[in-house]
C-alpha cells in the first residue's frame, strides 16, 4: 500500500504549524534580536554589544556561574539521594507503596507554594530550621540572607521537590532488572553490598542516565523556585540565567534579555547534548 497516501502529511500540519510559529520562529529570530536594542516595534542593530556587556558586567555574568552550580548540584544530589531512596523502597519492606506516594506528592504541588513554605521555614529568626538548631544549642543561620549560602538553600529546596520523580524512575529501573541475577549472586554467596555494586548499579544505568539528563536540563532552566524564594537576591547571589532574562525584560532591556536567552541555548547545547551522547555511549557497553 502507498504509505504517503495513507499517512498524509496533513496530519502533521497542526502540530508543526503551532510548533513553528510559537517555538521555532522565536528561537531563530532570537539570534538576531540578541544583537539589537529593541522594544518589540523598532530595533537598532548593535552587533555583539549585548553579549560583551553580559560577560563583563558582574551582575549579569554571575548568572552563568550560578546556573552551572545550580544545575550540577541539583542533578548530582538527586542522582545520589534518589538512588538510595529507590534501593530502600525496592527492598521487602511493607510500607513501600505508601512511602513512595508520600515522597512523590511534592512533585504535584506548585513550585511557588513550595517556595513560600520553605522561605517560611528558613526565616532567620522565626523559621523552624533555626528553632531546631537553637533547640540543640546551635546558633541560627540566615539561610536566604547570607550571600554565600542563599544559593545552596534554594538548591536544597529544589532537591526536596525534585527527588521524587528521580526516585520513581529509579524504582522502575530497578524493578525491571531480572530477578535471576540476584538469585545467582546469592547462591554464589555475594553480600548485599556486592549485589548492589555489581548488579543493581550497572543494570539501572538507563534509569540513571534519564535522571541525570532530566535533572540537569531542569536545573539549567529553573526559574520559578528561585524567583519565589529569593528573587535573585540577596544582591545577585542567587541570580541564574532565567531570572536575569526576566529581570532585564522587566527593566525594559529587551536586547539584553534576549542575549541572555541565547546564552542559555548555547550553554544547554554545549553541555547537555554532549552529556547525553556520553551517557548513551556508556549505556551500550
Amino acid at each position, binding site marked *: 500500500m502507498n504509505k504517503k497516501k495513507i499517512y498524509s502529511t496533513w496530519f502533521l500540519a497542526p502540530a508543526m504549524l503551532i510548533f513553528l510559529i510559537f517555538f521555532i520562529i522565536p528561537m531563530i529570530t532570537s539570534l538576531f534580536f540578541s544583537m539589537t536594542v529593541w522594544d518589540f516595534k523598532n530595533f537598532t542593530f548593535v552587533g555583539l554589544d549585548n553579549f560583551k556587556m553580559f560577560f563583563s558586567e558582574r551582575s549579569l555574568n554571575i548568572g552563568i556561574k550560578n546556573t552551572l552550580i545550580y544545575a550540577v548540584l541539583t542533578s548530582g544530589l538527586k542522582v545520589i539521594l534518589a538512588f538510595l531512596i529507590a534501593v530502600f*523502597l525496592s527492598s521487602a519492606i511493607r510500607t513501600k507503596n505508601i512511602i513512595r506516594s508520600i515522597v512523590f506528592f511534592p512533585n504535584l504541588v506548585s513550585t511557588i507554594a513550595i517556595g513560600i513554605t520553605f522561605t*517560611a521555614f528558613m526565616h532567620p529568626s522565626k523559621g523552624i530550621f533555626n528553632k531546631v538548631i537553637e533547640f540543640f544549642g546551635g546558633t541560627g543561620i540566615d539561610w536566604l540572607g547570607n550571600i554565600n549560602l542563599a544559593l545552596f538553600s534554594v538548591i536544597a529546596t529544589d532537591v526536596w521537590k525534585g527527588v521524587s520523580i528521580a526516585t520513581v524512575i529509579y524504582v522502575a529501573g530497578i524493578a525491571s532488572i531480572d530477578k535471576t541475577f540476584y538469585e545467582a549472586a546469592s547462591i554464589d554467596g555475594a553480600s548485599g553490598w556486592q549485589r548492589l555494586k555489581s548488579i543493581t548499579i550497572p543494570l539501572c544505568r538507563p534509569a540513571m542516565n534519564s535522571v541525570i539528563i532530566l535533572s540537569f536540563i531542569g536545573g539549567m*532552566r529553573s526559574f520559578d523556585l528561585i524567583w519565589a524564594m529569593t528573587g535573585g537576591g540577596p544582591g545577585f547571589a542567587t541570580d541564574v540565567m532565567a531570572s536575569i532574562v526576566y529581570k532585564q525584560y522587566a527593566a525594559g532591556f529587551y536586547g539584553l534579555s534576549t542575549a541572555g536567552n541565547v546564552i542559555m541555548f548555547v550553554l544547554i547545547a554545549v553541555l547537555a547534548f554532549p552529556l547525553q551522547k556520553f551517557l548513551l555511549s556508556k549505556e551500550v557497553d
Partner: protein
Amino acid sequence: MKKRKRLLLLGDIIGMVSAIVIFVFPFLFMFINSLKDRREANLLSMALPKEFLWENYKKVFEANNYIVLTAFKNSFLLTVLSVLGLIIVCSMAGYVLQRRKDRTMSIVNFVIMTGLMIPPAILPTIWVMQGLHVYRTLFGMVMVEIALQIPFDVMLYRGFIGTIPVELEEAGYIDGCKRASLFGKIIFPLLKPVTATVIILNAVGIFNDFTNPLYFLPGSKNATVQLTLYNFMGQYSNSYNLLFADVILITVPMLIVFIIFNKRIVDGMVAGSVKG
C-alpha cells in the same frame, strides 16, 4: 530469619518516620498555619491554632474583588483547552511520524526533538504573539503551552503507536476506510493509555505553570492561580495565615487528582521520562 524480619520492621519504621517528617510535615505546616489568626501565623510555628479560623479561606476568596475565583476559572480553562489541543495535534503528528519513515519525517522529528532540551526564546515569542494580536489572550497562552509541550507529547504518542500492529490499518485500508476515519476510528481509541498519561502530566504541569503566564498572560483580568499566589506573596507578606490559605486552596485540586490517579501518574511519569 527472625533477625531479617526485625530488620525489615525497623526499615518500615525508619522509612515511614523520615518520609512523614521530611515530606508530610511541610504540608501539615501550611494547613495548620492557614487556620490561625494573623499574629499567631506570623510566628511561623508548628503549634496548633488556638482557634480554628476557617473564615481565612473566605477572606482569601474575597480578596481583591474575588480574584481567586477569576484565577481558578482562567487556570481551568487554560489547562483544559491546552490539554485537549495537545491530545489532538500530538496524536496525529505522532501517528504519521511513527508510520512513515522517510527523509522529511526524520527532519521533522529532529526539529521537534530539539524542543525537549532547548528552552523557549521568550521575548521573540512575545513579539510573534503581538504580531498575531494574540498577546495577553487566553488563546495565545494556550498556543504557547501547546507549542512547549509538543516535543514531549509527540514522543510519548510516537513511542506508543510503535507498539500497535500495522496490520489493523492495512485491513481497514483494504476495506475502503478513509484516511481520517482510519485514524479516528481505529487508531485513536487504541491510544487510551497514553492519552491518559498525556492528560495527567500536562494538566498538572500547565495548572502549576508560573513562568509562562508570567510572561505571556500579564494583567489582572487574566490572572492564573499561580500568578495570584505570587502576587499574594507580596501583598500578604505580613499575614501568613491568608498566604497559606491560598497555598492550600491551590494545592487541593492537585491533591484530589493525586488521590484518584496516584498509580497512573507515577507510571505515566516513568514511561515518559525513561523513553526521553
